[in-house]
């Protein structure tokens, strides 16, 4: 289908004895927000790892923007506009918040070894542009006053915000958010919901893994439930969430 930005079909991934993903399929329409829920260990983060090229699956196919990306190195997938965040925020501790942000920008001439020496003006002009963009996004995430702090000194919630803000610096077409609300306080979470909606209006497609179901329901156009590495249910969020099997899968987690 032409209006699909991503279709990951029949993905399998085993770790030794465990099948973390068992013929798992997920499709994302252009400009849509897809929620991904499921009990702990269902394979949600593993699916992100596979889609973003951090893990090689045992089988399946992943088409992004009409192009097969399975087998491409992770950095190339990111360059195509498919950018992921991490469940446990990975800040560059010994770099400032602003440096973390500026790293995210794509197509930087100054990242080529010779350019900072021989094309100073171009590099500096680009740096100014990137810095402005970074500050705008930091403002958006209420991190502006932390810009010169080491990222390692941020609180857990702030790290989570930085993780997402930094990913946005790359101008993704499809953003994979792994539990963006974890550790974020409720007041900030409401703000974050607003911001994710604004991103969607700008045409960004997003997959959100999230345990807090109210947030997922507030945002998703479509909901997938993963259980034991397979899709248990998918479709309109309100329909999926009232599916008995979904409820049972979550209960089964405790047993």
């Amino acid at each position, binding site marked *: 289908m032409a209006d699909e930005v991503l279709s990951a079909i029949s993905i399998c991934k085993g770790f030794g004895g465990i099948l973390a993903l068992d013929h798992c399929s997920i499709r994302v329409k252009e400009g849509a927000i897809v929620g991904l829920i499921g009990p702990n260990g269902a394979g949600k983060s593993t699916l992100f790892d596979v889609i973003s090229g951090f893990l090689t699956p045992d089988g399946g196919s992943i088409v992004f923007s009409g192009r097969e990306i399975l087998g491409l*190195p992770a950095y190339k997938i*990111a360059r195509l506009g498919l950018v992921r965040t*991490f469940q446990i925020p990975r800040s*560059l501790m*010994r770099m400032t918040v602003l440096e973390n942000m500026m790293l995210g920008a794509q197509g930087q001439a100054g*990242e080529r*070894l010779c350019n900072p020496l021989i094309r100073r003006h171009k590099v500096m002009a680009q740096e100014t542009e990137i810095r402005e963009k970074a500050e705008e996004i930091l403002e958006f995430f209420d991190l502006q006053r932390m810009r010169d702090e080491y990222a*390692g000194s941020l609180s857990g919630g702030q790290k989570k915000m930085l993780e997402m803000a*930094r990913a946005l610096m790359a101008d993704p077409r499809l953003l994979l958010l792994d539990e963006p609300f974890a550790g974020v306080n409720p007041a900030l979470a409401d703000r974050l919901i607003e911001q994710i909606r604004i991103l969607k209006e700008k045409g960004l497609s997003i997959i959100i893994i999230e345990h807090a179901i109210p947030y997922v329901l507030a945002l998703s156009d479509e909901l997938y439930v993963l259980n034991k590495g397979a899709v248990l249910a998918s479709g309109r969020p309100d329909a999926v969430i009232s599916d008995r099997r979904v409820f049972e899968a979550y209960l089964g987690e405790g047993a």
Partner: protein
Amino acid sequence: MLDYLVSIALTAGIYAIFALGLNLQWGYAGLLNFGHVAFMAMGAYVTVLLSMNGVPLLLAVLAGMILAGAAGAFLGMATLRLREDYLAIVTIGFSEILRFVLLNWSTLTRGSFGLFGYPRPFQDLVGIRDYNLFLAGLVLAVLLLVYILLETLARSPWGRVLKSIRDDEAVAISLGKNAFSYKVQALALGSAIAALSGSLLAFYLQYINPNNFQPIETFYAWIIVIMGGSGNNRGTILGALILWGFFSTTRFMEGYLSFSPTASSGARMVLIGLILIGLMMFRPQGLLGRKEELSIGR
């Protein structure tokens, strides 16, 4: 007294350049190079051998840098896809293998007999009497250039990617950076800089032999970088100055104490070790390193 200062400027300057190459690799990119001396040796031998065969000095120096850079890149490409400690093991092995090759390939290198009587830059113009003073000036000029080069790169987007790889490679990759390529670049550039210091060392010593390039030289570079503060170019230069200031003062004092040379060189190493331990206890970030960078850990 002037001779004494000139000799400190020469050795400290040469070792500062040598250690700046390592600082790029370890301090900025987090790469464990335990065979840094190999690249210094390559610089010295390539420069000397080529210039003895009529190649202009500048070209001979550049050839040494290019060869060492290529060797660094090659070692990186062979090991960096494996776990990070493989680079450490392979570089230390490489430096010892190279030394044995230099010792045994006597038709080329004259083995432990060593090479001497080779050309030095502007030696006819300057004359033997003032030569060390001139060379010290040259070394400091090269040091300044290397420092400016590395600072420019460290503050550039290229340096930013390097630091991100040091802090967390997965982040760099998730943002579209080819981490592998950057690590290879850092290894190549750092090795080429080490080769440059090797050429200068050869000019200073007027006589090179494979035993100038023992693993202990790599260890000195590490002391210098750690003492000054990893990832800090100015700290590295300060570290080199302190290390060689210390070495020459203690050597100076030897004259007054009745130690045998081996005993005193042993005592010097013990002292260096104690200083390093003390530094790590009271200033673990190094002399010019930033404390915040340590306290937030990894």
